[in-house]
């Protein structure tokens, strides 16, 4: 019980710090520009690419609209993935190299795991704002077809939370590994993010892959997350064959939930192991940027 209280206080303090770091560093106006306009700008690039590259050669008007909704929704939720895969990595590397506070935080009587997760949580909140804005922009300006039935809201939130926990766990794994590596090693995170972007059905249905590609897709839990999100949020896109259609939603949820539990467990042990190795190698407060 005392331990839970401690973790709770760590969580609050670290989240407070995270919030100060993310929101305080510029004026509110710049903060708004950064967190609102940036995702929209990124989306506009995608929209443009779609119009120029894909649009002319592809089916009729209605089909076009559905395909566009498909990739738009996928892309909006991918903001979470991009944010969380790098979030914990950034916290650790920032504390280590830039603020050089890592040794002071590390020797405090707290769970360092709770600390980094809490720091990353504030980044998650900011990512949520970006996702909501991107979706609203899509619906009201670009005519993206989103229809969330009121009765589906609990299901949607469940899917959302399970997926976010899973993505965060992957972020913890990558962050833990970065404990042992230097700052410039973010290539690993970028590759993972790239693989997910390509294979998880973010922009196009995985049925467009040859068999081996689909095999990779099905091995990554995120694929099921995007599928589940689209089923509740943009049912129209179900017309596009994703090759996952035959999996019913209940099974989909089960796959999501169990893979997330596994990911959380793995992340905990990877983080503990990396922490131990880093302490043995003496690299916890290593500074590489001279």
């Amino acid at each position: 019980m005392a331990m839970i209280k401690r973790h709770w206080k760590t969580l609050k303090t670290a989240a407070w710090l995270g919030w100060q770091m993310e929101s305080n560093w510029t004026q509110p106006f710049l903060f708004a520009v950064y967190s609102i306009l940036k995702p929209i700008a990124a989306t506009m690039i995608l929209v443009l690419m779609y119009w120029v590259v894909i649009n002319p050669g592809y089916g009729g008007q209605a089909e076009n609209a559905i395909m566009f909704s498909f990739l738009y929704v996928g892309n909006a939720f991918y903001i979470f993935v991009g944010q969380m895969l790098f979030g914990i990595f950034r916290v650790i590397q920032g504390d280590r190299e830039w603020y050089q506070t890592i040794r002071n935080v590390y020797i405090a009587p707290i769970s360092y795991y709770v600390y980094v997760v809490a720091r990353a949580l504030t980044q998650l909140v900011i990512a949520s704002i970006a996702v909501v804005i991107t979706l609203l922009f899509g619906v009201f300006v670009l005519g993206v077809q989103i229809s969330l039935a009121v009765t589906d809201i609990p299901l949607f939130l469940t899917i959302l939370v399970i997926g976010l926990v899973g993505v965060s766990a992957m972020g913890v794994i990558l962050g833990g590994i970065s404990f042992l590596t230097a700052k410039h090693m973010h290539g690993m995170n970028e590759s993972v993010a790239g693989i997910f972007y390509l294979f998880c059905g973010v922009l196009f249905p995985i049925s467009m892959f040859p068999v081996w590609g689909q095999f990779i897709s099905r091995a990554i839990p995120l694929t099921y997350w995007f599928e589940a999100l689209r089923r509740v949020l943009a049912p129209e896109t179900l017309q596009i064959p994703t090759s996952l259609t035959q999996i019913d939603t209940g099974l989909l949820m089960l796959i999501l939930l169990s893979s997330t539990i596994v990911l959380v467990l793995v992340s905990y042990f990877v983080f503990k192991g990396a922490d131990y190795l880093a302490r043995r190698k003496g690299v916890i407060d290593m500074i590489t940027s001279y």
Partner: protein
Amino acid sequence: MNYAVETKNLCRVFKRKRSRKERKQEPTKENQKEVVALDDVNIQVKEGELFGLLGPNGAGKTTLIKILSTLLLPTKGEAWVAGHNVAEDTFNIRMKINSVSGGESSGYGLLTARENVWMFSQFYDVPSKVAKQRADDLFKTFGLYEKRNQKMRTLSTGERQKMGMVRGFITDPDIIFLDEPTLGLDVNASRVIRRFVADWVREHEKKTVLLTTHYMMEAEELCDRVAIIDKGKVLVCDTPENLKKTVRRSSTLRLEIDPLKDYSKFRDIPGIRNFSKKVNPETNRSELVFVIDDEAAVSDILSVVTGEGKRIHELRKTEPTLEDVFVSLVGRALE
């Protein structure tokens, strides 16, 4: 006896990646793969003691502090802090310690000095109100009160260092590790810190300080006991008084001369316990310190210098200091 800190045959080896060029060469002392930072260290720091680790650059002082503050694991041997093993029971140690490093200017630049130290106090479960009061008191002590509400990025290096001291003491630790706390601070600030640390230990019976320094004077005036450490080995460990006694019967001769080509002749003179030399780059003169057991050696030393046709600029015989203890043990000057 409960020791605040105890180490038993403590060793720490760092593996070093050798560059490609070095790998082709024969391994020598400089490019070997392993650096032995601590070599069989046995120390015992009593509760309530102000204990000093004195040693030159690279002696292993920071490494020892890192192990004791649970930032680094030993390679071999064991260490206990507040009775808990550093490799096994980190949580209970962390509850009782804090650590400040003089060279550090760490912190979150966007937060104010006060927010920075407050945040750390929360990790130690200090009630927020208490923490704020303590912070203000400590900021006053270290002369940072006026700047406590400034963003940390606007503070100077020395001011950040003082903020580090506030961070260390705000959690009211039982044991605090101070790694060269006055490094780079001006004379006045250094004095304030030394005074504060000394008072803190004296006023609280059970508070322990382990401090590293390479300033002799600091160790001599501040510490109850001092361990002299060089190349990872503890050479002696005693009160400054007793350490000085070991060289009391001998005397110290300080010479300032034009540099010699060859200093090895001094080694053959009987009656010299040890000596150190360094060249002062400003005057380009050689500064020699001899620890002498037999007064007859003095004339031999002088004849070596004059025999080379060199001038003697200054010659002094002095009372032994801790520095002389170091010279007699290591054959090198500390600074």
